[in-house]
Structure formats: structure tokens, C-alpha cells
């Protein structure tokens, strides 16, 4: 029999007796919109187990499937242990370890050579999915002298943000707590936003009505939906315009709001004329009665709010306008900036609104050189609204060297598999003079880098974070950085010295930079260090619904613009439509009808799985065991028509490429759809999507809609 102490240790019971302590940290496996508080069980400098922090103001003790993988994520076998220098050919994956000082010296030499020969803008700085260091990285790039700073925001949630900015000047989030009807446009929740599900459960328990618009049957549909509109992929704009016409025709419009706070209404009513119920049902595949009932519920129960889904709705060649069309429903029904409607928010720090201001954007952007950045002019709305380069143009720019050469890349956690047409990005990487990447793990991208630097996970570092409700949190490392890895920001501060970058703040280091950004919040680093859990910022001020409307919207007209004045500037030059006009998600394809015949199905990549986020967890055995092989979800009837059975090997074919994966047969995916998750090294979804398939407004790739077919392999 084991002793009682052995039992306690085996069960990982914290306490003096077992020597197991709990350290409060956060999870940054997924987006900063979450970054849930983590309790790490630590013994002898090693994490034994994780749980959510019970009194964290955001996640209230709960982690999702991915967050629960933190221990195996940080101890992944392929963690990089030392800086590495490439010794084989690019792509071969042969490296030798080297010391940090040597690595820094190589970086100084490599970046210096390109800067000297081609100028500072020939060095591009880019960040992959990680976000926690971004203001510092952006300032670093600009201080280096290059205008070329870009991030995965080029393909993440910015399209939606830009859509709302063009329309009403700010992003607006549903105020579910005070709402009575929720239009869950592309609301999935369970596999991407566990806390939102808790919110919706409360809403439902209070008697709220839930409408879900989703091409799939999801747990949210099963558990919450009073109405489910199983829409055809990428036709959201048509549905929104059809609903808009119904609202107008039925007299459900909030006339006061339209009169006082909007412009372009007349043009908009003209636009929606084409979307009678029959036409709308025809395009979207949603039965007329269901469209009517959903519209009636949403427009007549006040207040109501709409889910803000940054990627699902926006990642189509027509996504930006679809997003705007949906936003117009808020104005029509008077649900913008009212309690229980959608409330405007401003980011406090790194994509997270917390109800107080920080100087992060100013800190990040104040040194930006005035120069033509990568992709400038190709996507003018992007240029107007985002102080970064649109990275979908990066490969083209490097390969064509137009309008000027970019010869070096300094990237933090770059993932080539993020880029539609990954093969082209790889070609671009191979052509560079110098390429440095950082990561936690061995990755496909690293193989093309001259130098790879090891960084650490969130549990191994000090990190600053804000949470809604006015909270700020300076974490402490639960354990020391593993092996020789460092915090990304520490690498940047080291390089400031090595590269001789002249910037007073960056030269002073992390705390000085953070204190600069914190000014006005009522918090300082010295104060934050005293706490090991989130604290309330003195400057926190709860938002009062209507404030933004009273002060006037941040649009050229100061009003909600059904017809965007910003977009109107590019009507002639770029053929952009200031109204949220609908066009088919495949209208950009030459010979759409012919293509549809050849490829009768629609491929949607990136549909969330509970056990994956991009490529980050594919190498974590616990996560991977839940879906061991790259598997496409296909409709049973489509599979039967192709003689495909459960677990069969199939080949997905698009106009751009083909990919061998496993088939999972389901009725949850509508007939005509194929869903496949991305980020697998052995089955990279972005080899099926051409780099040309982008939304002309945002530059975003059409990840969610590509014509395809599949067959037994």
C-alpha cells in the first residue's frame, strides 16, 4: 500500500506536505480575446497540472480543451532548446545549435547587410499568431527604420473590424446581459469561446430568444437555437439584405434612429429592393418562412443584439461587404449603442477592451516612417485603417520586388501554412537574403530560416494582460523559461542594443515601455508587481450606452453610414461599392458557372475543432488523440454519391491543388459542403486555396469558400 503522502502527491494535491504550489498565470494558446487565467500546479520547478483560475474576472475558473493542454504544450518534445543556425539548404531542416551572443551577432550582420544595400524598408518585420509582444515589436520595427511591419491580422479578425469602422467607426459587441433576442450569426461558441456559451446559457435561462445562422449543425444549434438558419456558405450578405428589406417593408424600422443617426438610408433601401424573400431564399438556401420568422423575432423583440464573428463571416471573397450588410441590421432596428443591443468598444491593450485607456497604439505607431509599405494601393481600405502591411501581398512583393525589393524577414512565430497558396510563400522565403524566425517549436517555417531563436510559453514568462471590467494583470513566471529559451520581448530588447537602435524607450527596456503605455490608467508596473492576480485599474469607467452616439460616430459623416464615404473614395479607382452590395462568394472566379460544374462542392477550411487552434496543438499528443488524423467532415449523401465510407482516404481537389485526408461522414454538414481544419504539416489546407482568392476590400483570403470536389483516394 502506498503511503498517504504518496497518494497525495500522485493526486497532485497542493500543500506544504506535498510541496506542490499553485502559481497564477495565463494561457495564450489562443487569441487575446480570451487569454484565460491559469492555475499552474508546480513542484520542483515543473508544472504538474493546470486548471482555470477560479477568481479570474474573465474565465472564472474555466479553461477550454486547448487551454487544458498547456502542460503538454509547454513540454512538447519538439520545443527548441537553443538558438539554431541553418547548415543545410533552405527547407532541408538541418541546423546547428549556437549561443545567443553568436546568434545576435549573425542577426546584426544579416539585417545590417540588407539595410545597407537596399535600405531599411527592405527588412520586413512580421508576427505570426502570437500577440502579447506586439506594441513593442511594432515600435521596434519602426525604430529600426522600416515601415514594413505586418502581422497575422491580415487574415484574422481585421476584416470585420474594418467593415464596422467603415460603417460606424467602431467595433460593437453584443450586450447579451441586457438583451432579449440574440441573432447568433455564425455563433458556435463551444469550440472557440467557452465563456460565451456560459453567457448564452444564462441568457436562455432568462427567457432570451436565440436565432442561429450557421451552415453547420453545432452544439450551440442543438442546445440553444429557437431557430436555426442553415445558410449556404458565404451568402450571409444576401440573407442580411433580405432581412433588411423585410424589416423595411414590414415597418419594423426604428425611424428615429434612421433619421437622427444614419446616412445613406435611401440608397440602402434601393439596394435591398432586389432581395425579396424568394430571391433571398434562393441564394441562401434558407426557407422563406424561416427567414421571415427570424427577421420578425429579431426586429420586433427589443432590445436585440447580433453576434460579432470576426472570421467566419469575413473570410470569403465577399466577406467584408457581407459583414457590413449584417451590421446594417443593427441600425435598422435601433439596436446600435443601446443597452441590450450591440455596444461600441475600444481596445485597451492588444485587441482587448477593458474599459480604460492605455497608450499602446500610440507607443506602437509613433515612430512609423512615412513610406510606401508592402501592398500599399492594392487594398486601399486596409491602407486607410490599419498601420501595418497587408501580409497577403508579402509573397508577391518579395518575388516581384515591386515596387522595391524586400530582402530580409525578421519574424516572430511566423507560420507559412497561414498563407493561402503556401507554396508561393515558401518560394518567396527561399529567395530572401536573410530570414530570422522565433518559435517555441520545430516548425515548417523554421526550415527556411537562416536563424531560429527559441522563445518560451506564457507560463514561463512575465506578461501583461487586461480583462473587461477594468482589470489589469501582470503575471509572474510559473516556472523559469525552459532550456535556453527567452521571452520574445527580451530578444527584442537585446537586439535594440546589438543593432544599435536609437530609441530612448526601447533602450530602457520592458518596464519603461509598459509604464509609458500604462500612463493615465492609474497603474504602474511597480504597483502591478505587488499582486499575483488581476487588479482593477483606477481609470476604469464603465461604458454608458448611448455615449458614443451622443458624441457622434468616428465616420466621415459622424453618422452610421449605410453608404460608406470612406469606401466611396475608391469607387472609381478600385471599383469598390460604398453600399454593402452582395455578390456571390465566387464572383471573382472567371467562369463561375463552369467552375461550379467542375467543382460542385464548397470547401470551408478552419471550421473550429475543440482540440486545435491553427497548427499549435497538432503536435500535442493529448489534443491530437481527439482527432488523430487530418480529417474532412463531409455530408453523408455527398459521400455516398462518391462511394466514400467513414474513415476512408479521400482526395479533396480544388482548382489550385489536391490534398489527401480522411473522411468523416456526418449529417451536421449540409449537402454540398466540405469542412476541413487547417494547419496540418502533412495536409496543409492552404495548398487548396489560391493566393489570388482575396476580398478586394480587406485583402482577406477566402478561407471559408472555395469550390471543390472530393473522391475516394
Amino acid at each position, binding site marked *: 500500500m502506498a503511503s498517504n503522502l504518496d497518494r*497525495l502527491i500522485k493526486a*497532485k494535491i497542493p500543500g506544504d506536505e506535498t510541496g506542490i504550489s499553485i502559481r497564477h498565470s495565463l494561457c495564450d494558446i489562443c487569441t487575446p480575446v480570451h487569454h484565460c487565467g491559469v492555475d499552474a500546479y508546480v513542484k520542483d520547478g515543473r508544472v504538474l497540472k493546470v486548471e482555470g483560475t477560479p477568481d479570474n474576472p474573465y474565465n472564472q475558473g*474555466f479553461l*477550454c480543451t486547448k487551454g487544458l493542454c498547456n502542460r503538454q504544450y509547454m513540454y512538447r518534445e519538439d520545443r527548441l532548446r537553443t538558438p539554431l543556425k541553418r547548415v543545410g539548404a533552405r527547407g532541408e531542416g538541418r541546423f546547428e545549435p549556437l549561443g545567443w551572443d553568436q546568434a545576435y551577432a549573425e542577426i546584426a550582420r544579416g539585417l545590417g547587410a540588407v539595410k545597407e544595400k537596399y535600405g531599411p524598408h527592405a527588412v520586413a518585420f512580421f508576427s505570426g499568431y502570437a500577440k502579447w509582444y506586439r506594441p513593442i515589436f511594432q515600435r521596434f520595427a519602426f525604430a529600426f527604420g522600416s515601415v514594413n511591419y505586418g502581422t497575422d491580422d491580415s487574415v484574422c479578425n481585421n476584416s470585420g473590424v474594418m467593415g464596422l469602422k467603415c460603417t460606424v467607426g467602431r467595433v460593437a459587441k453584443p450586450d447579451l446581459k441586457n438583451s432579449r433576442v440574440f441573432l447568433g450569426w455564425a455563433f458556435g461558441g463551444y469550440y472557440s469561446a467557452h465563456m460565451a456559451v456560459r453567457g448564452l446559457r444564462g441568457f436562455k435561462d432568462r427567457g432570451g430568444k436565440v436565432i442561429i445562422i450557421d451552415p453547420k449543425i453545432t452544439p450551440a444549434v442543438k442546445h440553444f437555437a429557437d431557430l436555426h438558419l442553415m445558410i449556404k456558405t458565404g451568402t450571409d450578405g444576401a440573407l442580411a439584405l433580405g432581412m433588411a428589406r423585410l424589416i423595411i417593408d414590414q415597418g419594423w424600422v426604428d425611424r428615429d434612429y434612421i433619421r437622427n443617426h444614419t446616412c445613406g438610408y435611401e440608397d440602402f433601401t434601393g439596394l435591398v429592393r432586389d432581395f425579396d424573400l424568394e430571391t433571398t431564399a434562393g441564394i441562401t438556401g434558407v426557407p422563406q418562412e424561416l427567414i421571415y420568422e427570424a427577421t420578425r423575432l429579431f426586429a420586433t423583440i427589443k432590445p436585440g443584439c447580433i453576434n460579432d464573428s470576426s472570421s467566419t463571416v469575413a473570410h470569403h471573397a465577399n466577406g467584408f461587404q457581407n459583414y457590413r450588410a449584417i451590421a446594417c441590421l443593427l441600425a435598422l432596428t435601433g439596436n446600435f449603442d443601446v443597452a441590450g443591443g450591440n455596444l461600441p468598444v475600444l481596445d485597451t491593450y492588444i485587441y482587448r477592451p477593458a474599459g480604460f485607456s492605455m497608450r499602446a497604439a500610440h507607443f506602437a505607431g509613433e515612430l512609423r516612417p512615412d513610406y510606401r509599405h508592402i501592398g500599399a494601393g492594392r487594398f486601399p481600405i486596409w491602407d486607410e485603417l490599419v498601420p501595418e502591411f497587408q501580409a497577403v501581398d508579402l509573397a508577391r512583393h518579395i518575388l516581384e520586388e515591386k515596387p522595391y525589393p524586400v530582402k530580409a524577414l525578421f519574424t516572430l512565430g511566423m507560420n507559412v501554412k497561414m498563407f493561402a497558396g503556401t507554396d508561393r510563400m515558401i518560394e518567396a522565403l527561399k529567395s530572401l537574403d536573410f530570414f530570422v524566425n522565433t518559435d517555441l517549436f520545430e516548425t515548417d517555417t523554421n526550415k527556411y530560416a537562416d536563424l531560429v531563436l527559441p522563445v518560451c510559453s506564457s507560463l514561463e514568462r512575465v506578461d501583461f494582460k487586461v480583462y473587461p471590467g477594468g482589470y489589469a494583470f501582470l503575471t509572474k513566471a510559473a516556472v523559469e523559461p525552459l532550456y535556453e529559451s527567452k521571452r520574445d520581448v527580451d530578444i527584442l530588447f537585446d537586439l535594440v542594443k546589438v543593432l544599435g537602435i536609437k530609441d530612448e524607450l526601447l533602450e530602457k527596456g520592458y518596464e519603461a515601455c509598459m509604464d509609458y503605455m500604462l500612463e493615465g490608467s492609474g497603474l504602474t508596473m511597480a504597483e502591478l508587481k505587488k499582486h499575483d492576480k488581476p487588479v482593477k485599474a483606477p481609470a476604469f469607467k464603465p461604458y454608458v450606452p448611448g455615449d458614443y452616439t451622443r458624441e457622434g460616430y468616428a465616420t466621415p459623416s459622424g453618422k452610421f453610414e449605410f453608404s460608406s464615404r470612406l469606401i466611396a473614395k475608391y469607387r472609381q479607382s478600385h471599383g469598390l461599392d460604398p453600399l454593402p452590395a452582395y455578390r456571390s462568394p465566387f464572383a471573382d472566379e472567371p467562369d463561375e458557372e463552369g467552375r461550379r460544374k467542375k467543382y460542385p462542392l464548397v470547401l470551408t477550411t478552419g471550421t473550429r475543432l*475543440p482540440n486545435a487552434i491553427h497548427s499549435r496543438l497538432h503536435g500535442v499528443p493529448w489534443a491530437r488523440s481527439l482527432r488523430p488524423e487530418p480529417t474532412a467532415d463531409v455530408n453523408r449523401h455527398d459521400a455516398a454519391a462518391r462511394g466514400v465510407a467513414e474513415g476512408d482516404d479521400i482526395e479533396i481537389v480544388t482548382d489550385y491543388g489536391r490534398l489527401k485526408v480522411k473522411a468523416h461522414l456526418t*449529417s451536421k454538414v449540409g449537402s454540398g459542403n466540405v469542412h476541413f481544419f487547417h494547419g496540418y504539416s502533412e495536409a496543409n489546407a492552404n495548398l487548396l486555396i489560391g493566393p489570388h482568392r482575396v476580398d478586394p476590400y480587406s485583402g482577406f483570403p477566402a478561407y471559408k469558400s472555395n469550390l471543390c470536389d472530393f473522391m475516394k483516394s
Partner: protein
Amino acid sequence: MKYVIVFDPDRCSACSACAVACMDQNDIDIQAGERGYRRAFEWESQVGGQALCAYISASCLHCGDAPCIMACPTGCLRRSLTTGLVIYDNSGCIGCRSCSLACPFGAPRFRADGKMVKCDGCHVRLENGLKPACVRACAFDALICLTGGEYQKMLEEKAESSLVKALGVWGPRG
């Protein structure tokens, strides 16, 4: 104190947070061929031409009259006096599979060394005032841990999970 781990399929999404929490708690080595004691999964069936989907999280149900305890020829399995859960000491396990054939849920698994392993309800955590790892991880309250009294009260208000009810393993014994 007696405890019951209750599963509510109407709140489950088979997200497997429970399963991963179980793996983290029990140091499950996937690469060595092990699998977690709790698993979550989706199930679709066609009833009358209509697709029905279920989301399920399953592990040992710690049956009131646990057939595995009776079936174990070496006496490895027993009911915990402190928590009422079905626990085990597999040092005497001969890997005979009797418990596996007795279990209507297929909960007992056999490790590479032939020894039986299964969910022990995190009874040591319960003894120390902590919830079972899977319950602690479920953000949707699909898994909850109740005391015997709370469970009886719940039964008066709400029907039991169809799976448990259909198999009738939750008796008033013990």
C-alpha cells in the same frame, strides 16, 4: 460523504475538456498507447430518416451496485468508504478482463503491463476538498459532482441521464 458525478447530455458538446483534464490529472501517455479514463465524443444515428446527434462524455459511472467489484476475482476493486466511489488498487490485478466484461460502459482499460486502470473519480481530490478533474474542467456544467443528498434531490426534480436509466445500474445499494 458520498459523491455522484452526474452527466447532462443537454449541456455537452463533446469538446473533450473533461477528457484532457483527466489526461492531465492522470499523466496519460498517449504515445505509449494509453488513453484517458474519460472520453467525450459525438454520435449520430438515423431515427426515422432523421439525423439525431448526441454529445457524450463517458467514463466509469461509479455504479451504486458496481458489477465490476463483484466480478473482480482478486479483490482489487472496492468502494471508497470516504467518497462512495469505485476505487481500486491494481497491484494484485491479473488482467483477466472480468471487470471489463461486467461493465456495461466498457470503463476498465488494460495498460501495456496488463493491469486494469479506470477512472477513480479523483477520490483523493474529493477527500481534499477539490472537485474531480473532469468536473472542474467542464465550463458548461455538463459534468457536475453532487453529494448523495444533492443527487437524490436532483432526481426528484429531473430525470436521470437516459444511458444510466436505461441500464439501471444506479441502484439504491450501498
